């Protein structure tokens, strides 16, 4: 009993428990929101023509889409399916949601990873550059640039960048039908370039600001002053003491951004026709495919929770002094 209590009190176990409760909450909320939104699968499939269907036809369709049962029954039927690995079926394309997700998830992961790399590659050096010249013209310009990048909506940047590249260079790989990394690596990377650049730019901005602030803060700490007084070489001080500590908030930020990317790349995936999980959610919403949206949102939420847990654990690697609370 004491062992069990101890296990339950263990921070990691407690976090897992919280995560499961969060996911149940997410699933219930998604279920309710989807039902509150006007329209159902019948109006999504038939549009205004749904009004021309006879009551018998509507009853047939409600049974076909599985929306003739009471809401509670519908929820538990779906949840029971999820627990046994059956995420439901997309009635439009007659594909299982599990199969659709298995196709979509790697594309979103790839997009998120490339975007994060671009974001870090711009943000960390940018932040360091600005922090080395606090208050100077270069610092102000870098910060202004980063604020500008942050304030441009991704859908606008995506549309403008896509049209501009197509107009000026006659290049638009995303019109050619999507190829996965394994089918055609070169085409795939070309197709990922613009969307991940757009997302990378939007991530670079908070990474740059966080890096800059962290470096400036750490540099004013007593232990840095002490280290400098002891004669630690400038480069070593910069890398081992300042940058290493400054990376802790950057890791947190990146973890959060990655979580957001998995679900939030929705518009960019839609604009560039990347068949990822974000686009799957959007199409599911448009077609009122309840099973698709419920399952996809649950998967995104699960990944978000997992990424957060992993980020917490990564703290220990970057700075062993930090412990999971």
């Amino acid at each position, binding site marked *: 009993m004491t062992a069990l209590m101890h296990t339950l009190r263990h921070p990691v176990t407690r976090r897992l428990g919280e995560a499961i409760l969060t996911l149940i909450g997410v699933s219930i909320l998604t279920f309710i929101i989807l039902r509150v939104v006007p329209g159902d699968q019948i109006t999504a499939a038939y549009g205004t023509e*749904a009004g021309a269907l006879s009551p018998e*036809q509507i009853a*047939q369709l409600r049974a076909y889409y599985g929306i003739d049962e009471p809401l509670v029954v519908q929820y538990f039927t779906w949840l029971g399916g999820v627990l046994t690995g059956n995420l439901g079926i997309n009635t439009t394309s007659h*594909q299982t949601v599990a199969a659709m997700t298995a196709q979509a998830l790697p594309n979103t992961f790839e997009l998120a990873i490339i975007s994060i790399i671009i974001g870090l*590659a711009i943000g960390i050096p940018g932040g360091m550059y600005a922090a080395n010249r606090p208050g100077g013209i270069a610092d102000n310009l870098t910060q202004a640039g980063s604020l500008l990048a942050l304030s441009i909506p991704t859908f606008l940047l995506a549309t403008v960048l896509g*049209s501009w590249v197509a107009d000026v260079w006659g290049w638009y790989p995303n019109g050619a039908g999507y190829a996965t990394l394994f089918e055609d690596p070169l085409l795939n990377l070309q197709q990922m370039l613009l969307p991940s650049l757009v997302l990378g730019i939007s991530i670079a901005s908070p990474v740059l600001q966080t890096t800059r602030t962290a470096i400036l803060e750490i540099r004013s700490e007593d232990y840095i002053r002490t280290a400098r007084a002891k004669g630690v070489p400038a480069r070593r001080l910069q890398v081992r003491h300042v940058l290493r500590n400054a990376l802790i908030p950057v890791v947190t930020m990146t973890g959060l951004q990655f979580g957001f990317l998995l679900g939030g790349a929705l518009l960019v995936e839609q604009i560039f026709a990347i*068949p990822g999980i974000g686009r799957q959610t959007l199409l599911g919403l448009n077609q009122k495919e309840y099973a698709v949206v419920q399952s996809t949102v649950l998967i995104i939420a699960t990944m978000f929770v997992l990424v957060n847990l992993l980020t917490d654990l990564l703290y220990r690697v970057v700075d062993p002094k930090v412990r999971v609370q």
Partner: protein
Amino acid sequence: MKVAPSTHRAAAAGAMLMTASLLLAACAGGGPGKPNEDGGAADPDAGMVFGITADVAQTLPWKTTSEQSFQVLSQIYSPLLSTDKDSVIIGNLADLPEISDDNLTYTFTLKEGLKFSDGSALDSEDVKYTYDLIMNPESAASSSSFFASVESIEAPSPTSVVITLKHPDASFLSGINGVNTGIVPSDVDIETLQTTPIGSGPYKWAKRVANESITLERNDDFFLGTPGVAELEFRIIPESQAMVSALKTEQVDVAIFDNPVTAKTAASNATKTEEVGSLQYHVLQMRAASPVLADVNKRLAIQCAISRQEVIDSAALGAGEVTGPITAPEFRSDVTAQPCPDQDLDKAKEYLKKAGTPDGFDLTIITSQGLYSTAVDEAQTVQAQLALVGIKVKVETLDSSAYVDRWLEGDFDAAIAANGGGTDPHTGYARYFTSTGSFNNVAGYSSPELDALFAEGIATTDKVERKAVYTELSGYLVDKAVWAWLFTPKKFIVLNTGVNDYEARIDASLAGLWKANVSK
């Protein structure tokens, strides 16, 4: 200014990544688009890519309602009859029928040697099977209303189909010329057809990647001739600017836009644009059933205060034509035949006085965001025009689902809507304006006079007499200001310069797409 070496390196790494990205882009410059010579010889092995904005919602022809489903499935399924470029009904799988003197029996003779794309024969049993399926409520067929007057369907011989009606119905033939009455094979189960459609159209189903593309192959057994391209791919590109980019870089050969601004941005050396009218109409629906608009004088005041041309010019940038109620080419309404053919504010004020509201009244108009590009602008233009006579309009902009819900429930006073028009006025309008019509609640208006006119319209088979009935009906609708008809929109077909023989049609049908080919 001194820069720390590590910062230099990190910045250099970032710059290198950016440069590599741009180089990758530059290396791929030009893309995989194919070269074209305008007017060159048709390449029989060429493929054509047709850009559509959404995946098909249904693969069973009798359930088809979405535009994309119509576009794709019309390449796979053939109906018994069809329409020509001018929307006149012509024979297709069968010749035009022999009609008995009492106008109740229609005898169709199928063409010889018809085949489905799987090689099996198409005969009268398949026609009977398809039509019986459509008439069965369990099929939930959107096309079942076309068969409302059908008593029985017989297949006395493999090439003969006899359809008997309960009462004369002059609109019957217009119902069986579209893709959602396309003939399906009677020996293939419906589950199979849902994943692998089999028809007798110019192309056959090859591959579907959900929400990405649908690929069709040439059907060599197509009864009208050899389709122009070997492979026809419908590629799903949801964003219009992405579609424009794909057209300009020659990755998509054909796309249709309803937004004139987007269509203009697609013009380039690689493209040509065809502008085509439409049978569709945009309208301000005024529900007489709601207390706000119950008085005919209020509705007439609204009709008189609206300048239809101004709505076209400001909301649709001139891309449309003023219309009266009926858009079917053979029955088209005279646009000047209504109480105020042009905006007449004095007359509008007179009607307001007659209604007992000389200073105007408050009105809410619902409109949609997402259903079509000009909807919100149309509502705002009407709002500004009605303000001139004191009618204070509140525009309620809804997303498409919410709009469809409210619209179907008739839960509105007035609505900006875009309705489909057909080649027959009865098919499009009886469901709104007859007291038993399935959309009568949406229209919010019915009367014994209208019921009688619609009944007379389908019972009259002589074309000249029939046209007179619909002219009277059209006059009734505008005299009572049942709705305020605004305009028929234009569509813009943007084509790769290498695409030849594309048949741009006013009814938006792709029945002639099989003739299109691509030059080398």
